């Protein structure tokens, strides 16, 4: 919970968190090493220096660290796991649905655990999705369309198999489709991070929500265009958020564009923890004001009301969370007590 100076409470949902294992012991090959090192460069290139982690801690951190960084010092009330498995780089997977589920069990009401699928896995993958959906009560998936799989260098949401998977999501009640359209995570050479396929998928599956993570950076111009056409397309702010510190002017320009093209109900906060810590992101965001020239040019506002929507209300709607009821539910729970002790 973030408290404003005037005492108003803001319920925060971090829509994009990870508990990963990038350690040497878990790496399968050079790719595994390079992948986590690249994340580390993202971490140090955009975090304030006082928030730098050591490389070792960054490779693998304990769930207690996560609990502390998110809920005790980071103002977060709920977090959504967006796992990436990278089975070809890491023995036991980089992210792990099972480990996430353990935390969900230990801290009821604090986490939502998503999974991922790859339509190139065909029937077998469909079955597995069904199994996971039932076992873990899955409400959302995180997709990487640029991921390599055998000879394939990526897929599109419009591919026939991808459509079958989306139909399966609909059938299983998985309504939130988070799509990583952003900086590349695996070697690619086509425009697999092109956002155009979102357009068609979103108009075919109007009852599903498409949250475009990282706003389609590095293709934000196409993303804005699609998002104006399709009302079930949302902007996930992970990776965009940390620019608030390192490049505030650009952060302001991008926020101006997003608010102009999408309106304030379709922009969603995410830290991409542990690449960046929610504490400083949220503090800076609450302090942040759009410069006058951008306000004048785009005619948009980023006031307290807008910030509340971005930090929690918008994503709460997508996951069917009643914020007032959830506050009651979490009051006095393990994490609440932990936070009290610390303060």
């Amino acid at each position, binding site marked *: 919970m973030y408290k404003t100076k005037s005492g108003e409470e803001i319920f925060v949902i971090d829509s994009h968190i990870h508990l990963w294992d990038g350690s040497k012991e878990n790496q399968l090959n050079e*790719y595994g090493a*390079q*992948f986590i*090192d*690249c994340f*580390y*460069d*993202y971490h*140090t*290139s*955009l975090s304030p220096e006082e928030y730098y982690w050591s490389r070792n801690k960054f490779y693998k951190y304990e769930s207690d660290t996560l609990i502390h960084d998110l809920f005790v010092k980071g103002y977060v009330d709920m977090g959504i796991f967006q796992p990436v498995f990278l089975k070809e780089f890491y023995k036991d997977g980089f992210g792990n649905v099972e480990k996430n589920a353990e935390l969900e069990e230990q801290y009821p009401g604090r986490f939502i655990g998503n999974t991922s699928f790859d339509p190139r896995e065909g029937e077998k993958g469909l079955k597995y999705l069904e199994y996971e959906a039932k076992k873990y009560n899955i409400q959302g998936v995180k997709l990487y369309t640029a991921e390599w799989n055998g*000879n394939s*260098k990526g897929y599109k949401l419009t591919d026939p198999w991808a459509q079958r998977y989306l139909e399966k999501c609909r059938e299983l009640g998985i309504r939130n489709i988070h799509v990583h359209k952003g*900086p*590349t*995570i*695996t*070697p*690619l*050479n*086509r*425009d697999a991070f092109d956002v155009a396929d979102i357009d068609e998928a979103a108009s075919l599956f109007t009852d599903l929500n498409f949250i475009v993570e990282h706003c389609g*950076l*590095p*293709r*934000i*111009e196409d993303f*804005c*265009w699609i998002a104006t056409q399709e009302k079930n397309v949302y902007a996930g702010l992970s990776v965009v958020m940390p*620019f608030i510190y*390192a*490049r*505030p*002017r*650009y952060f302001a*320009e*991008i926020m101006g*564009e997003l608010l102009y093209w999408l309106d304030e109900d379709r922009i969603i906060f995410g830290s991409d923890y542990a690449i960046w810590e929610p504490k400083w992101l949220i503090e800076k965001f609450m302090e942040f004001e759009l410069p006058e020239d951008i306000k004048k040019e785009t005619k948009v506002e980023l006031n307290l009301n807008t910030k509340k929507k971005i930090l929690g209300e918008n994503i709460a709607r997508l996951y069917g969370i009643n914020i007032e009821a959830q506050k009651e539910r979490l009051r006095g729970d393990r994490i609440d007590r932990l936070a009290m002790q610390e303060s």
Partner: protein
Amino acid sequence: MQPVQEVYSKLNMVFDPELDQSLTELNFIDHVSTDRSNVTVVFRLPTYWCSPNFAYMMAEDIRDRVLELPWVKHVNVQLKDHHASEDINYGVTNRKAFSDSFPGVSSSSELKELRRKFREKAFLARQERLMHHLIKLDFNPKMLLKLTIGEMKKKIDLLYDDLTQSLWQKYLLIRSDMNQSNGDNHPAFTRMNGEPIEPNELESYLSNSKRIRLNMEFNAHQCRGLLAARYNLQKNKEMKI
């Protein structure tokens, strides 16, 4: 000029197609060495994962630009610390097409198409950056549409301002890259196919171009930051335009 300096002056003209900034500006050149008519250029990118197709374009452009120097017979281009270093270095040094170096992944027309697409983005971004800048300097937007290249040149010369001049020069360069005439009598601001921009369309035209420009600049900041983190370079201060 020393041979290495001459090579650098050529590298100033090689651009990252996605960011529309030169490799020297971006700090992508690791080092250059020369041995009589042989030149070696070692370059580096912000991540191990940067798209091989863009890396390939940059490597090809390095080779071709440096070969323009009359004394150069052979250019050895080396991309370091990249997942596809080996294929790219071999392919470019031996003049293979991208599609031969990465069979099954891409056709030769694809890389050409990608080049064209990014040149168009660069055109729109450079034009918007210049127009945005001029409008801030109190030029009337609709009047800009009436000016010719010759008239614009005179006005810009009278400003005695390096920034305006460099934005103008970069804009002229991309116009000629896209086969648009920079003759004095041509209108200064047109669409990329040479068609006029109607005054009542100007606002939406520019806001569309602005998204493209912002996207490129945002990516450039990200890439610079990652490169600095990767190679322990000093972080750049925020650029103001």
